[in-house]
């Protein structure tokens, strides 16, 4: 049984924000992280605020080349959105291998981001499209890049009085590729051993923009920026790709755990980044310049 707790059930966003400002309470969305944590080692007497009735936080809006996703959008909502395969291919690939069906029906994008786990699967794809998060509170709103929202192991810039209202990004340019790969011990229902998302934008036969985001290989999901810079302004030859992939592996700070050793993880970052960059270069329309 779960330890006892209080549950507030606001019916509007304003009401929820007022509750967050005035009482020490934790937002409860899908509950797929919070409830198992509570069951495993939680204390009794905490207070939660259910976001279940706040429909305005759920759903995806496509406005021209912008995508605005409500914080309570579930992982399966992402798979059901017909425009998402174009708007963020890596996010769709990720959602297909995120936990299992039942979890995908409950887990929310805001929950996955705010929990701040190094193995949060939604974060590498969102970093690869330069997503921004908008946080709202009774005191007002602020928007910041997801990249600067992540501060460390299960540490984010989220304040206790705030809700993550939306995640938004601009659809990658036409001549680009955006890919994700999750390495786990099994295909479904697994915690990620290494997660990689890349974006490559091609202009006149060279890489004009690159993003390499890595999960499960450092205290937080992060962008391998030094590796990205290696790719800029160059055609992606095998040698350039390998150099960037190796640099990404060197930027990783993985740990040994029951799923894999640190050494294996670092090696796998090298291999997976190389594989995804090669695939990105070949599918992005760059082939015509080869």
């Amino acid at each position: 049984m779960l330890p006892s707790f209080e549950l507030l059930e606001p019916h509007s966003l304003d009401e929820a924000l007022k509750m967050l400002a005035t009482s020490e309470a934790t937002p409860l969305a899908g509950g797929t992280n919070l409830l198992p944590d509570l069951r495993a080692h939680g204390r009794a007497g905490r207070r939660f605020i259910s976001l279940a009735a706040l429909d305005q936080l759920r759903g995806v809006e496509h406005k021209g080349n912008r995508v605005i996703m409500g914080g309570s959008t579930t992982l399966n909502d992402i798979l059901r959105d017909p425009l998402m395969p174009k708007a963020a291919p890596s996010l769709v690939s990720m959602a297909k291998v995120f936990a299992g069906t039942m979890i995908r029906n409950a887990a929310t994008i805001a929950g996955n981001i705010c929990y701040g786990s190094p193995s949060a699967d939604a974060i590498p794809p969102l970093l690869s499209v330069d997503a921004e998060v908008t946080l709202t509170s009774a005191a007002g709103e602020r928007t910041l890049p997801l990249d600067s929202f992540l501060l460390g192991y299960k540490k984010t810039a989220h304040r206790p009085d705030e809700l993550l209202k939306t995640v938004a990004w601009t659809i990658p340019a036409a001549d680009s590729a955006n890919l994700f790969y999750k390495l786990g011990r099994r295909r479904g229902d697994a915690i990620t051993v290494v997660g990689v998302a890349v974006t490559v934008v091609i202009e006149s036969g060279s890489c004009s923009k690159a993003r390499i985001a890595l999960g499960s290989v450092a205290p937080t999901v992060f962008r391998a920026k030094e590796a990205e810079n290696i790719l800029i302004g160059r055609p992606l030859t095998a040698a350039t790709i390998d150099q960037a992939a190796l640099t990404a592996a060197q930027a990783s700070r993985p740990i040994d755990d029951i799923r894999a050793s640190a050494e294996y993880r670092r090696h796998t970052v090298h291999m997976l980044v190389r594989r995804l960059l090669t695939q990105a270069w070949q599918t992005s329309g760059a082939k015509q310049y080869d």
Partner: protein
Amino acid sequence: MTDKKTGVAREKLVNIHVNGTACEITVPAWRTLLEVLRELGHVEVKCGCEKGDCGACAVLLDGEVVDSCLTLAWNADRRSVTTVQGLGGPGKAHPLQTAFIEHGGAQCGYCTPGMILAAKALLDDIPNPSLDDIKRGLSGNLCRCTGYTRIFSAIRAAAQALRQEGGTS
């Protein structure tokens, strides 16, 4: 029942439609749908890992498959729940149930109710699923007996039977 000091409700009367029957039960906020369903006598809903890994407790909540161990009973208030019993039973088995029997999709049977409900949700979405679709549909359900292949073939057979019926699953 309301806490006198904080004004927060400690218990609430929730009304859940289980397999078409209205059930009323007064529960505190921390009780799960799984616990409540079993207390109501629906022991066909199984308790496995209690952390969303195994899928034994899966039920349909307003037609969507969820882990009842991670669903608070309060969140099921005024909503409809379908357990495997709601699909059918002896004498009037659902095509999925028939196919699981015919293809040997169940051994110890503990994962079977969750498997069948996840499969039902899958076939409602995708009437003619590929093997990949089936694997993805069942990615939150663990079976330690069958090795899954008989479960996959049962679902393919059920999908075909349902398509031939021409109706909905």
